[in-house]
């Protein structure tokens, strides 16, 4: 499909795929309606962005005009990379369980599984922890993909099973040696952080094996990769975070949500310090979110799932371009 040369005006996805997308959206809304989860909309354009050093936002700008003659462009805000912050503000305000289907934007290269603009399904369940939510993700995948029930495994057990290393206790030196022995990198492994190397092994060695017979839910990631998840109460080496894999592809990322405003503030600040050191733009942290968290986030778990990838799986397409009406190059 990807090799077929189409004129630039022409959609990349075929008409059958457009129908499949519409059908998928319909069946997702039915899934949540049956569970009394409320559909919401939040702003795509916002004064705040993500501070995550590995996710770069697009800025929206106002072009020069008679009313705006100062500079060629003036900054108007950030396009969301995820609807997480405003959705958490709704939860803090007492919305109850909510979901959203929306466009998100990330400065990334296009690839077989990446488009800079893509559709995300994000949902939050009040009173759920990450294990409860993993069960619901399993039900969701069976509902939308008609697949077998999912298996679950911890991050640690997965590394031990596939690579015979313990990702929670391995020293940095051992990890560097391990990666260098595998010869994956063009350079040497000691230029990379511990988490970068774990991510590298995960995406290159482990991920291609996952979820071929049935979906696989991987949980209990290292605490250093907690992002916006809680640290586990029993094992502080791990975070209450999970990811879903189907047919060797990452499909969803879920958290037992961090509700602690001071800790959230610390993570924002530490992200911006990492950004400053790397010469990346510092991003204004979302004070509205911090105020909302201080007001109180109900105990909840949330998950974000890539809808374009879900459609790829449903349509058995290997390239994300083939499920988008107009991928970035044609947008």
């Amino acid at each position, binding site marked *: 499909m990807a090799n077929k040369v189409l004129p630039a005006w022409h959609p990349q996805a075929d008409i059958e795929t457009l129908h499949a997308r519409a059908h998928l959206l319909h069946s997702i809304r039915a899934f949540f309606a049956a569970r009394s989860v409320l559909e919401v909309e939040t702003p795509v354009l916002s004064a705040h962005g993500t501070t995550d050093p590995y*996710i770069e936002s697009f800025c929206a700008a106002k072009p020069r005009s008679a009313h705006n003659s100062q500079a060629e462009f003036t900054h108007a805000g950030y396009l969301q990379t995820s609807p997480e912050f405003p959705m958490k503000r709704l939860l803090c305000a007492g919305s109850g369980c909510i979901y959203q289907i929306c466009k998100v934007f990330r400065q990334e290269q296009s690839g077989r599984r990446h488009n800079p603009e893509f559709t995300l399904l994000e949902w939050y369940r009040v009173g759920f922890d990450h294990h409860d939510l993993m069960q619901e993700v399993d039900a969701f995948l069976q509902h939308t993909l008609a697949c077998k029930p999912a298996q679950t495994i911890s991050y640690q057990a997965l590394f031990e099973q596939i690579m015979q290393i313990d990702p929670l206790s391995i020293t940095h030196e051992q990890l560097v040696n391990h990666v260098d022995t595998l010869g994956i*990198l063009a350079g040497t492994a000691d230029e*990379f952080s511990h*988490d*970068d190397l774990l*991510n590298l092994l995960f995406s290159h060695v482990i991920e291609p094996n996952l979820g071929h017979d049935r979906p696989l839910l991987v949980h209990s990631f290292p605490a250093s990769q907690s*992002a916006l998840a809680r640290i586990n109460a029993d094992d502080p080496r791990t975070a209450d975070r999970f990811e879903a894999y189907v047919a060797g592809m*990452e499909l969803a*990322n879920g958290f037992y949500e961090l509700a602690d405003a001071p800790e959230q503030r610390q993570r924002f600040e530490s992200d911006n310090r990492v950004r400053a050191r790397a010469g990346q733009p510092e991003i204004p942290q979302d004070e509205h979110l911090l105020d909302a968290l201080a007001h109180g986030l109900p105990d909840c778990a949330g998950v974000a799932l890539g809808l374009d990838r879900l459609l790829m799986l449903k349509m058995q397409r290997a390239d994300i371009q083939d499920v988008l009406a107009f991928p970035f190059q044609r947008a």
Partner: protein
Amino acid sequence: MANFSTNEFKAGLKIMLDGEPCNILENEYVKPGKGQAFNRVRIRKLISGKVLEKTFRSGESVEGADVLDTELAYLYTDGEFYHFMNNETFEQIAADEKAVGDNVKWLVENDLCTITLWNGTPITVTPPNFVELEIVETDPGLKGDTAGTGGKPATLSTGAVVRVPLFVQTGEVIKVDTRSGEYASRAQK
């Protein structure tokens, strides 16, 4: 030579890796939901011919390789070097045994070969997809066999040995596919 960032990587780009010029065959962008992005690249080392997979940190810059493909006619060998000529400029260039490698058995005078130059020096010699060579030795075939069942070995004028159908005889000129080393047909007169 210019440097290339990973976001300029694409099939056909020539870069340096471990001091050896390489050709990118495939480039895939790998970005976990959280964490560092990588470019996973399938690469052919142009001197050793080895194909391998390597991963770069996205955004990293890599030195480009000054590699150029040029079409030159094979002239002769002096025993040590193989001499080629540009038919337009008449400029001559000599490739050593290492650059020619196993392809020596497909070198036919006046055939246009693709010579890959790195910093002006030949590193590989690729013969045309089809060459015509004379059979200097093969067993006489059985009369009446035209189906070419199984075939028989035949030694060609350059020393190459290929399997040919039983009906092809010593002294005939045949066309050989140099990519597979297989007999294609009798040469057109």
